């Protein structure tokens, strides 16, 4: 059974279509990134999945049930974009309260440990830093041991170090056979922490696959070298090349097949190739290309 199934789901606010005919299925046990720019419809999709808002049209199922039923059964835990805690209560009190709402929660100590909160357990929530608050919100999301964990831009308020620690916690939770869906507009995060990336733009899925497939779909990798004064003729005809840009003596070739392009560059041209650099096209470029074509 799919963990999540959205069939032709739309959500309109007056004239604005926040989500526009979204089709999406997700198997249980995977970690999937919902990647897209601000305003792409990620949060709207997530809020519909959690039953917080109702779709204008279409059908949503979570483990074969409606979102409301899945929430009531304790199948879902989520970390929403905003949210402050009750200031007068301690971390332990908050986490323990939420975990007791679920039918089959994780042990309190384990939740605190997984969210790296053991040493902060007796601190009042109004005395936490931004990053610490996010960790508590993560703890609240996993406390009930939900089968599906949903995270809406969870690292938005974190510094680099907190981010790394956060994703480690997330992976540890996912490793126990859970399904994780997270929204992000950080491309690196999608690449590093998911085994499938769904790119969303303008309320629709515009690409779906592994991070590598997404990159390939948008023009693969790049090969860069110094051309100096040499002629650039014929570079666009090299195997695999999908685009050539030259900027102050440096050539960047976009290629769908980096090995073939590099081999040909040395064997089939007489160019003096210097400072060769091969880059994955970063997901950023792939992402821009994909979301741009959705807008066109």
């Amino acid at each position, binding site marked *: 059974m799919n963990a999540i199934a959205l069939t032709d789901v739309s959500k309109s606010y007056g004239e604005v279509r926040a989500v526009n005919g979204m089709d999406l299925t997700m198997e249980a046990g995977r970690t999937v990134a919902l990647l897209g720019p601000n305003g792409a419809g990620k949060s709207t999709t997530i809020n519909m999945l*959690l*039953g*917080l*808002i*109702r779709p204008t049209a279409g059908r949503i199922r979570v483990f074969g049930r409606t979102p409301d039923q899945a*929430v*009531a*059964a*304790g199948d*879902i*835990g*989520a970390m*929403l974009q*905003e*949210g*402050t*805690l*009750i200031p*007068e*209560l301690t971390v332990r*009190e908050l986490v323990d*309260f*939420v975990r*007791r*709402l*679920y*039918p089959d929660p994780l042990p309190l100590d384990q939740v605190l440990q997984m969210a790296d909160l053991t040493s902060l357990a007796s601190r009042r929530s109004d005395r936490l830093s931004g990053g610490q608050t996010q960790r508590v*919100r993560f703890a*609240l999301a996993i406390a*009930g041991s939900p089968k599906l964990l949903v995270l809406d831009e969870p690292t938005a308020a974190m510094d680099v170090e907190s981010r790394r620690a956060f994703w480690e916690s997330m992976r540890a939770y996912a490793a126990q056979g859970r399904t994780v869906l997270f929204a992000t507009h950080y491309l690196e995060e999608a690449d590093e922490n998911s085994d499938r990336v769904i790119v969303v733009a303008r309320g629709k899925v515009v690409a779906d696959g592994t991070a590598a497939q997404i990159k390939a779909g948008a023009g693969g990798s790049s090969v860069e070298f110094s051309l100096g004064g040499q002629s650039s003729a014929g570079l666009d005809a090299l195997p695999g090349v999908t685009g050539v840009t030259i900027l102050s003596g440096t050539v960047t070739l976009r290629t769908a097949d980096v090995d073939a392009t590099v081999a040909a560059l040395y064997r089939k041209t007489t160019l003096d190739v210097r400072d060769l650099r091969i880059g994955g096209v970063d997901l950023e470029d792939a992402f821009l290309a994909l979301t741009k074509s959705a807008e066109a």
Partner: protein
Amino acid sequence: MLNYVKLEATRMLRNKRYIIFVVAFPVGFYLLYSNLWGNQVDQATGVRASVSLMVSMAAYGALAAAIMSTAVPWSQERQSGWLRQLQITPLPSWMIIVTKMISSLLLVLPALLLVVLAAVLTQHVSLPVGEWAALIPIMWLGTIPFAALGLIIGSLVPPDTAQPLAIIGMFGLALLGGLWFPIDMLPQTMRTIAHALPSYDYASIGWEIVAGHTPPASAVAGILGWAVALCALAIYAYRRATARV
């Protein structure tokens, strides 16, 4: 549910505003007033001022506790995202408002009982057992309309507005209900308004009990009417505030 009630009670007992308005004020004023006028005796009823003041200040404290433990906290929870956090757990939606009501009733008790305790300890107030047994439960459950009013405020407006509204509501009801001074001292129009308020009915029942009378049917009907109307409105406002669209 118990878990949730405990959470709500814990957080309010740590809230400074609750402690000051709800516990310190009524007890403090009782001590002050009863020291000034405690031994005066009402000619009409023969009740000592230390006793009627006990009812007035307990009524004020209970009313304040009912409104302060509901309006602003609930409004803040809606705005801060805590409500959404609860909505994505298995906690049923109706349980939130029921818990708020039960917690509010619990949080009324310290205000009510501390004033009574202060009266008994400092003014040696003593009432027949039957009067105590009628007074305390009625003054306790009589706060239901005020808690409902607090929930209505919390459901309808953001915290910035809920705060002044709650304070105006609390002092307005206390003042016009005759909890601070007898409403006979007010001009006629305000007296008419006062008679229509739940706080006047609420306190009247208490004053009548300590005077040894059966509470007037009009006051009992008044408070029941207010309770039904405000609870219905609170449920409506709650459903509107938590509607998922």
